């Protein structure tokens, strides 16, 4: 059994801006080497959480540790071991400086040894397919290229923890896919811990090992992505293919009070049932006991979108 130590530990972290509590006593841990996703609508408190973790903001209550360093007690050490891609990262480069100059400046600020700087920049820019454009002013690059350059900046000093705020926002699907691939390959290659803010559900579903859902500054839910997808379904679709008696199967299903909707498609009925983990076997039993021959009884895969909407709708921790 592999035990993953926690790289980021957040305890009771709170940040207020006047009357607004942007982050409200949040608590969760991020395992070393994992990709953790913080999901939530705009204004939920995602960016504030990242700003607190990279010590840009000082919490009003609570604290967090990054690789053992407390964000209040040791902010400089925290900044040394974290790489940050701010919100709208592609707009946070020095537009008049070349890509190379942007990276060289930050490499020095992050204390990358002088003799390692050229090699490190070349390695990253080559990896991101930007080496040919290293002398172009950052402002003349496309949005996708700028985003990858901003990612290079975050990765320059080989940080233990990467805090990425909406890494694929404002990117076209091809560029977004490329950035996701880069994150996954870096995570695999260097074992770095990634903390990703996103409101893109499919992105989080594809990349993250664990997720938390935040809304109005509160963590509504957190846990393993796969587990949450299945555990937190209040209702679920089942696809049932039958031999002959489609009408009869539909009538039986409709008569059950936990079935909330029903659709017929050729030889299949698609039913939505409440409390699926209790009622799915009851549905099957009801159909079989009345002579329906079932060819297929398949659970429609739950998506994070379903989970997300369920949780946001209920607005409370489960």
């Amino acid at each position, binding site marked *: 059994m592999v035990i993953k130590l926690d790289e980021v530990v957040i305890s009771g972290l709170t940040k207020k801006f006047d009357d607004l509590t942007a982050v409200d006593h949040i608590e969760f841990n991020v395992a070393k080497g994992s990709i953790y996703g913080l999901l939530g609508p705009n204004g939920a408190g995602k960016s504030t959480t990242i700003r607190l973790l990279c010590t840009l*903001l000082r919490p009003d209550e609570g604290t967090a540790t990054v690789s053992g360093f407390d964000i209040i007690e040791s902010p*400089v050490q925290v*900044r040394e071991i*974290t790489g940050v891609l701010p919100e709208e990262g592609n707009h*946070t480069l*020095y537009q008049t400086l070349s890509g190379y100059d942007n990276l060289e400046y930050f490499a020095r*600020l992050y204390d990358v040894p002088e003799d390692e700087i050229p090699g490190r920049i070349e390695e990253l820019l080559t990896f991101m397919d930007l080496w040919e454009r290293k002398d172009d002013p950052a402002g003349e690059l496309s949005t996708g290229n700028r985003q990858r350059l901003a990612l290079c900046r975050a990765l320059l000093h080989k940080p233990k923890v990467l805090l990425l705020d909406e890494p694929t926002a404002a990117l076209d699907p091809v560029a977004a896919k490329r950035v996701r691939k880069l994150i996954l390959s870096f995570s695999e290659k260097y074992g770095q811990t990634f903390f990703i803010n996103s409101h893109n559900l499919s992105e989080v579903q594809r990349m993250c090992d664990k997720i938390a859902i935040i809304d109005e500054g509160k963590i509504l839910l957190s846990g393993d992505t796969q587990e949450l997808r299945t555990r937190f379904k209040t209702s679920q679709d089942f696809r049932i293919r039958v031999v002959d008696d489609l009408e009869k199967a539909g009538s039986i299903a409709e008569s059950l009070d936990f079935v909330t909707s029903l659709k017929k498609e050729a030889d299949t009925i698609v039913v939505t049932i409440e409390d699926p983990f209790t009622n799915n076997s009851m549905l099957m039993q009801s159909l079989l006991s009345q002579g329906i021959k079932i060819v297929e009884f398949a659970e429609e895969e739950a998506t994070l979108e379903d989970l997300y909407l369920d949780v946001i709708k209920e607005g409370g921790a489960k």
Partner: protein
Amino acid sequence: MALYKSILVAKADLKMAMKVKMVRYGLIGIGALGPITMLVTVALMVYGDPVIGVLILPSISAILAPMLGMIAIIPASMIAANALVGEKEMNTLEPLLSTPLTDRELLIGKLLSSFIPSMALLLGSILVSEIGTFIILRSVGAEFILVPGIPGLFLLLTAGPTLIVAIVSIMILISGRVKRVYEAYQTSGAVVMVFILPMMIPTMTMGAGTVDMNSVWMWNIITFLITLVIAASTWALAVRKFNRDTMISM
């Protein structure tokens, strides 16, 4: 505190500021304005009537020295505005603050990025004025007189740097209240106007073509002390206010 990091920030700020046309041409234009005004005045005096010109040159020098200083320190506010508000406007502040730079290193870096070019401009203006005056005086066979003279040099080399520190400090304080560089330029312009006054006070002693040099000395020392108090108090306030939380929240 690592000074090399502050120098790194200052160098990057200067490099970036020089890419902004308004700052680049502003620096060249303003930098040239002081010595040109100084030398044209000296030339008119000396070539008009060399005997009288040389006699009243020390008084003219006392009047013009504060003007030379005022012009040379204006770029400090332009560069400071660009280095502070410009970072915010260009969204580059957040990644910069995410680096291991300490608040103090960043503050010193921002100060140096304005201080170094403004001091270079001030010293350059003085040097060009002195050399130009030497050439003009030699061309009419007159004895060399320092323009700016010793009282003026004292004022420029003491009140000048302290005023630059004051301007940068005030820029740090107002940067939290303005969102755009042009707003900062406007505000800094007003700030410079406030600081013009103490530099102009020595000129008020003028009468009948000459000034009382004792009075010039006295007012130059008072001006220096005023700028010193302003610089010390605004710098102390800027150090207190300059932190990540306020910069990001502002």
